[in-house]
């Protein structure tokens, strides 16, 4: 009896929510903000092209939902968390921003997540890699969409050890990102029966990597793990080729984007092992979308460009289904919906905000096997989302109820 009454109440509440939905687009416009690095070191991996990917998603939605226009605001955070946070705050306060998409740089992502949570509006993090976004610093409004450092370490470490790469040596960027990547990967390698023979830490933006590489080589490890990013990774790989290190050791980049491989060229990058969330040349669906992207940008999309598009579409569909752009309601809608598009299959958003989807290990092809421009990767392993990402039971996010 009691149960029935409760059910009736819930049904009533539900009907009311749906009934009032049409009038619930705030300011009569759905406003999306994209804050990323448009001009600095990360500008090539999403940046202006990522903004265009979001514009594509909005255009594909018809530019409006139920007659309410969709608008995009874009800003450059210059890799400064304070600029990112104050821009986000300004847009929430004066522009009635409904969704914040956070581009590259973990520091800025963490700063913006706090603002979005305070304003009770969803933030989808695309380019930030820090696992703190869904652990220590998780919020009910953060969705971490594309990848995180734990998944990179997990996929790279476990798959390579399984394929026989038992002994490792790390070349690590000497700051929080590098050391946490190295520590995460070390745990995975040991858990899978491999060993880590040592590590050398280099300063950020080091001028020359050859000395560090010779130290790595003398360790006689099979695998050289690069726990660094961007220009440091590119210059490490270049020096490794020059000194013939890539003949005695297999190199695994823990954070390498296709743009880095493109910049290096196949003769230098060949044989490199890379973990990513998406590759443009995977199937007909990814190729079809990438073709449209290429026509605009004259380059193939990175995984982040694809995630920008996918996340925008996912959000807009949730707004459509919920009939409102209210932060809480759209978040609830997104949490119960699967991501199913060219970017991810059966992706789902966990309590801590992590979007769980498959991750992939690729090997960079030699020049002789590359048949057309941007034909760079060979798939080595597909790791299902529940194995790639940190298990929910281990998440320290306060939203996850511990039993």
């Amino acid at each position, binding site marked *: 009896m009691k149960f029935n009454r409760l059910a009736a109440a819930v049904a009533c509440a539900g009907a009311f929510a749906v009934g009032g939905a049409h009038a619930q687009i705030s300011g009569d416009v759905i406003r999306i903000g994209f804050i990323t690095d448009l*001009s*600095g*070191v*990360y*500008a*090539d991996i999403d940046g202006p092209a990522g903004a265009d990917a979001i514009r594509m998603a909005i255009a594909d939605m018809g530019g409006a939902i139920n007659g309410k226009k969709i608008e995009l605001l874009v800003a450059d955070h210059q890799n400064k968390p304070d600029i990112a946070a104050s821009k986000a705050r300004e847009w929430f306060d004066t522009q009635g921003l409904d969704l914040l998409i956070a581009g590259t740089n973990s520091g800025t992502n963490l700063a913006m997540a706090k603002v979005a949570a305070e304003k009770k509006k969803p933030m989808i993090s695309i380019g930030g890699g820090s696992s703190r976004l869904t652990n220590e610093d998780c919020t009910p409004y953060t969705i971490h969409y594309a990848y995180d450092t734990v998944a990179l370490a997990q996929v790279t470490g476990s798959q390579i050890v399984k394929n026989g790469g038992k002994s490792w040596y790390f070349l690590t960027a*000497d700051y929080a990102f590098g050391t946490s990547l190295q520590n995460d990967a070390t745990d995975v390698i040991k858990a899978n029966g491999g060993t880590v023979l040592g590590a*050398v*830490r*280099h*300063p*950020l*933006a*080091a*001028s*020359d990597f*050859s*000395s*560090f590489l*010779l*130290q790595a080589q*003398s360790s006689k490890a099979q695998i050289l793990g690069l726990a660094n990013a961007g*220009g440091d990774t*590119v*210059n490490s790989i*270049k*020096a490794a080729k*020059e*000194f*013939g290190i890539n003949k005695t050791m297999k190199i695994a980049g823990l954070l390498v984007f296709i*743009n*880095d491989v*493109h*910049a*290096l*060229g196949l*003769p*230098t990058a060949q044989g490199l092992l890379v973990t990513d969330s998406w590759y443009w040349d995977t199937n007909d669906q990814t190729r079809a979308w990438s073709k449209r992207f290429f026509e605009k940008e004259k380059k193939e999309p990175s995984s982040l460009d694809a995630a920008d598009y996918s996340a925008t579409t996912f959000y807009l569909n949730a707004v459509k289904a919920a009939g409102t752009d209210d932060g809480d309601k759209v978040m609830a809608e997104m949490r119960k919906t699967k991501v199913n598009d060219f970017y991810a299959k059966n992706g789902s958003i966990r309590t801590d905000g992590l979007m769980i989807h498959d991750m992939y290990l690729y090997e960079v092809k030699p020049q002789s096997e590359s048949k057309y421009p941007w034909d760079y990767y060979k798939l080595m392993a597909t790791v299902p989302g529940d194995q790639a990402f940190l298990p929910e039971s281990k998440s320290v996010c306060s939203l996850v109820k511990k039993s």
Partner: protein
Amino acid sequence: MTELFGIPIQALFGQLLLGLVNGSFYALLSLGLAVIFGLLGIVNFAHGALYMMGAYAAWILLDSFGIDYWFALVLAPLLIGIVGVIVERLFLKRLYKLDPVYGLLLTFGLALIAEGVFRDRYGVSGQSYNVPDALQGATDVGFMILPNYRAWVVVASLVVCFATWFLIEKTRLGSTLRAATENAALVQAFGVNVPVMVTLTYGAGAALAGLAGVLAAPVIQVTPLMGSNLIIVVFAVVVIGGMGSILGSIVSGLLLGLVEGLTRVFYPEASNVVVFVIMIIVLLVRPSGLFGKSA
């Protein structure tokens, strides 16, 4: 195996040699800075940008015009030298009468603009420049495998450094140049066109930076930011050598390369800082630098 401080002697030699390679880049860059400061009194903050433009010039020459490394080695410094001449004629010559800080600010601004333009045009991931065919491969020098290209870099930059030093310190042209910086009016009275000489000197300093850029292109990724990553270290090298001292910049460039190489073995985390630590010590003990004339 014989060891020194727990490091095999062989490995130590290898690291010292690598230090020498990096040191020769420092020497070449700080040489250009020293020439410009010593003769013109300008703290040329655009030096890193000129170095970057030298590397890009090599890449553009190859990519768009099919001009190979060896021609680029001559053409690119020439182009950057012309850029230097234009900058001097348009801007710097108006600043000689002012406080040196104006020259510093101007060149710093120009460097930021140049970086911004290249970043906008070519992106930040950078371009890859392959080692020329003749210098592909590596030689086993007993204690390590030395890539031929790196050996070439050491030889080329030592030759250029010595030639520059010789030109300025030992030739008639050099002595006129030095005289002009001491007393421009007097030298002019002897019929020497001092303004043209000053312009060409800045152009030559810029060309040295351009040459370092071409030499570096096959070793590191050609990116718009490659200059700003290096310029501060190079300034420290110049300060250690003694502002404006030609010989000082060459010797301290090579020495600091070696010290940095050793730091990479014993305490890699400090390898970016060690140059500055030495700079502080030198400034405390000998404020005019190792080779500087005390004021």
